[in-house]
């Protein structure tokens, strides 16, 4: 019974963490201004995405194959960003 309740508690805790990170992002955007602010906001969004993937989308409990596939997709996306950056800069 306790284990069953713990699972719901985990979901609730993840939501609280996500809401805190959202509040952090809004604070970064509205209060702090500097050259590093956009990067910091995207970084916090990436952390939120990671939490959503691992806990909400169940990657934490899935087989290693799923983690490899998801990691591979984001690696390819990162590769596209890097290639785009060099393509744009060297034009």
């Amino acid at each position, binding site marked *: 019974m306790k284990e069953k309740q713990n699972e719901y508690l985990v*979901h*609730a805790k993840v939501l609280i963490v996500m809401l805190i990170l959202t509040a952090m992002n*809004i604070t970064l*955007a509205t209060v702090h201004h500097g050259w590093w602010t956009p990067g910091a906001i995207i970084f916090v*969004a990436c952390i939120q995405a990671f939490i959503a993937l691992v806990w909400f989308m169940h990657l934490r409990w899935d087989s290693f194959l799923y983690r490899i596939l998801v990691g591979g997709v984001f690696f390819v*996306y990162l590769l596209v960003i890097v290639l785009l950056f060099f393509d744009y800069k060297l034009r």
Partner: protein
Amino acid sequence: MNETESMSKEHAVTHRDDEGARMGMWIFLFTEIFFFGTLFLVYAVYRYMHPAEFHAASLHLDTYIGAMNTAILLTSSMTMSMAVTALKQGNHVLSSRLIGLTLLLAFFFLLNKFFEWDHKFLLKIYPGSDLMLSLKNGYVLFFGLYFFMTGLHALHIVVGIVLLSICFVKVKKGLIHSGKNVLLQNSTLYWHLVDLIWIFLFPLLYLIT
């Protein structure tokens, strides 16, 4: 019909590939990630080209409505995760209620989006309006991307609502249960992706000024 034929007919009816279904759903989600990811890159390039106009244009967006929508979607993700947990534990009633709550939150999201867009239209801020045509390219690009990306996201929400409604009915009827729940799992994965996309849309459009 001989014994072999009747046995193979039984097998054809009862065979399921839940793992294959989940893998297929993940592959579909990968295509969605690349789809929206490309749009984010388009946004990034145009923002780099027109920083001042993008900054000024984004000030027209209401951060509080965006934040409210973020909270709504995050909560709906939690309720969907809880719905899957409840179903796996055999609690159909709780599962269906949580799916119902998710649907309600989704409708609130769309309602917020409706009022947001309505306000923009009242101010003549929409692609092709006289106001837009008189502004610099940066403004046109920002609002074009804003309406396209949030509109596409809203369309995904509508598809999610249809999927979750089907799951809601099936859970109620007992067609989805603890022994057969891959449809609910896959619909939940889709819903989490919709949330994941908004996690990036909100800061890109509303916060990076």
